[in-house]
């Protein structure tokens, strides 16, 4: 089941969280079915390691259970909240992988690691697109990933990135322009007109 933060999905998540907070275990099961695959997928894309990704997804879901009793429906969407938690947990792990560099000096880890995306590409075109995504500036890449890979709406992306919907549209437009420019250079090699 593809879960996006939009519309009915978000309302259903909020309803299930309220039921879980009231002690309904079946709500936890349904929430797990709805949210865990996305959390695991996101962690996997960022970390490229299944064991670590599973640990992160589990930790994030445990945080969600703890949050349920104080959850305020309408203030946040469970899926976007979970995305943020998974993102932060992954960043923490990526920083710990580089112990030789002081945390404050370490560059911000890339979300997601382009090499992980490239590994997942099943065709030559997909591999080239994945590589091209890896060259985008961080915020453009995040906006593009949330839009095309997570299916988020522009307002949700704006909330996540801390910018307006217009700024999101601008980020996406610039990302697409840059991707198109890169792909036009590769077009011949890939056999397109």
């Amino acid at each position: 089941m593809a879960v996006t933060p939009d519309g009915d999905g978000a309302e259903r998540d909020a309803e299930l969280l309220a039921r879980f907070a009231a002690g309904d275990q079946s709500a936890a099961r349904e929430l797990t079915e709805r949210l865990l695959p996305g959390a695991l997928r996101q962690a996997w894309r960022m970390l490229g390691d299944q064991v670590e990704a599973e640990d992160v997804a589990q930790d994030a879901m445990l945080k969600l259970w703890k949050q349920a009793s104080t959850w305020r429906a309408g203030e946040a969407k469970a899926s976007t909240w979970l995305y943020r938690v998974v993102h932060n947990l992954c960043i923490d792990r990526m920083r710990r992988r580089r112990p030789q560099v002081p945390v404050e000096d370490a560059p911000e880890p890339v979300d997601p690691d382009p090499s992980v995306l490239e590994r997942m590409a099943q065709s030559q075109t997909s591999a080239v697109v994945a590589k091209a995504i890896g060259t985008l500036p961080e915020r453009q890449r995040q906006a593009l990933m949330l839009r095309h890979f997570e299916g988020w709406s522009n307002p949700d992306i704006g909330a996540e990135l801390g910018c307006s919907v217009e700024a999101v549209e601008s980020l996406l437009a610039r990302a697409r322009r840059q991707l198109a420019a890169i792909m036009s250079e590769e077009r011949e090699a890939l056999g397109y007109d």
Partner: protein
Amino acid sequence: MTDATQHNAKFDLDEALDALSRDAKAGSPRPGPDLVARVLAGAAAEVQHPLDAADTTYQAPVARTRSVFEALFGWTSGAVAAMALSLAMGVGLGMELDPGDLPMTEEPVTEQFEMADGSLFNEDFL
């Protein structure tokens, strides 16, 4: 690899992004029964003990600061050891610096102390 290479199609960025997204979803791991069980166990624990994390009003008193002796030897032994050490230091200091041994002269204070120390080894002391 199945690609547009064979049929020279028009390149469509949206199509390419969709294809990559499908690849990424297909290539990502799915939660196995073990992971699902761990997550649900966490949920069950939270339902059974929902106040563990929140209800700290009547729990977790502020930790009492422990002295080095207390940490090393326990509360009673630590207290006794601390008192004994204080007593020993007081007695020792009193013996070393008997005011009667310090002559009121113009000599530098360091020499006065040397004299006081020397007095510990004279016949009267021994």
